């Protein structure tokens, strides 16, 4: 466990500085697989109802108020680890999709309601993208969302620079307008590939 704490601390430093997420030199990555129609149901039930509040204080459930599909990620607004890669990717994918005529809401549900309050989430997320929706709430309300999406997380340590550091689930969920889970997406995919996948579910 001490090894993991050390690694996480170093990883956080690397991701937060952009060193891991945004290297200046890129190399040929393996080509993305063509989207196939082969689909297997996952062995878990994912998704369900929740009642939270967004960064403006407005209540929000699993149903998108604007009738959009949703990309939902569980993390925290100033997380220096995987969130610093996943949240910009979600915002980029949403922007790509908007250009293709499909509006999608990128949503962060916090795993730390003390850190992420109505007052603090907006400014922190705006540093990444003003399109991001941040959801928080009391622990009971958040627990319902965690249970519905089978989210696990564990506080690893308090970093003197970044505050609380968590190890947490990192897959992104694609929800329809009513909040039903359509699929899950690894946070390592490029925004173009995520946009292509979302378009298939949008029927485009």
């Amino acid at each position, binding site marked *: *466990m001490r*090894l*993991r704490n050390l*690694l*996480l601390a*170093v*990883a*956080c430093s*690397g*991701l937060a500085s952009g*060193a*891991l*997420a*945004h*290297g200046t*030199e*890129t*190399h*040929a*990555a*393996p080509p*993305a*697989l*063509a*989207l*196939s*129609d*082969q*689909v*297997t*149901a*996952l*062995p*878990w*039930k*994912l998704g369900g109802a929740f009642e939270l509040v967004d960064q403006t204080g407005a209540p929000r459930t699993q149903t998108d108020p604007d009738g959009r599909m949703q990309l939902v990620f569980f993390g925290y607004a100033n997380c220096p*680890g*995987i*969130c610093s*890669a996943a949240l910009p990717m979600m915002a980029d994918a949403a922007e790509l999709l908007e250009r293709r005529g499909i509006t999608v809401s990128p949503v962060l549900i916090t795993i730390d309601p003390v850190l992420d309050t109505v007052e603090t989430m907006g400014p922190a997320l705006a540093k990444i993208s003003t399109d991001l929706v941040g959801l928080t709430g009391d622990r009971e309300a958040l627990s319902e969302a965690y*249970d519905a999406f*089978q989210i*696990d997380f564990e506080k690893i340590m308090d970093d003197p620079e970044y505050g609380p550091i968590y*190890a*947490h*689930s*990192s*897959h992104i969920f694609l929800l329809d307008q009513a909040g*039903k*889970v*359509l*699929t*899950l*997406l*690894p*946070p*390592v995919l490029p925004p173009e590939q995520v946009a292509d*996948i979302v378009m*298939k*579910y949008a029927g485009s």
Partner: protein
Amino acid sequence: MRKQLLMAAMLLPLPIAALAAEGERIQVRGEIIDTWCYYSGVMGGPDAVTGTAHHTCALWCSAGGIPVGLLAEDGQVYMVLKIAGDDASAGGDTQLRLASHEITADGLLYHRDGLNYLVVEEVVTDHGITKLNHEDYGAVPPFAIPKPGK
């Protein structure tokens, strides 16, 4: 405690194709990789971001929440949803212990959106770290190796 409910009958709503009833049992041999660096290309080409050259960075990325994958001998990548004994897809003790290791895995394969997802039910054999490429590439990236404390 993760509430992993095996409810294959309760299928996710999928608009695209007929659903297979359950995952396909497979046995596959390959390296446990850092999927972020492998797919993004930011740290080097596929050969440089595997094996001993990338071991330290793979540990960092897994600890930071990057899901691990299994790079099979035929080049297919399987996104690992969990590994026997550890429910996490990243950062768990098992994922860290097996980073860069070549393993033979027995598990259930799921196909979605052109991606392969693997639930490793058993690590049949841990072959250890078999790709010794640090002499070819050095540490990838070089800053993966922490500098000595002042």
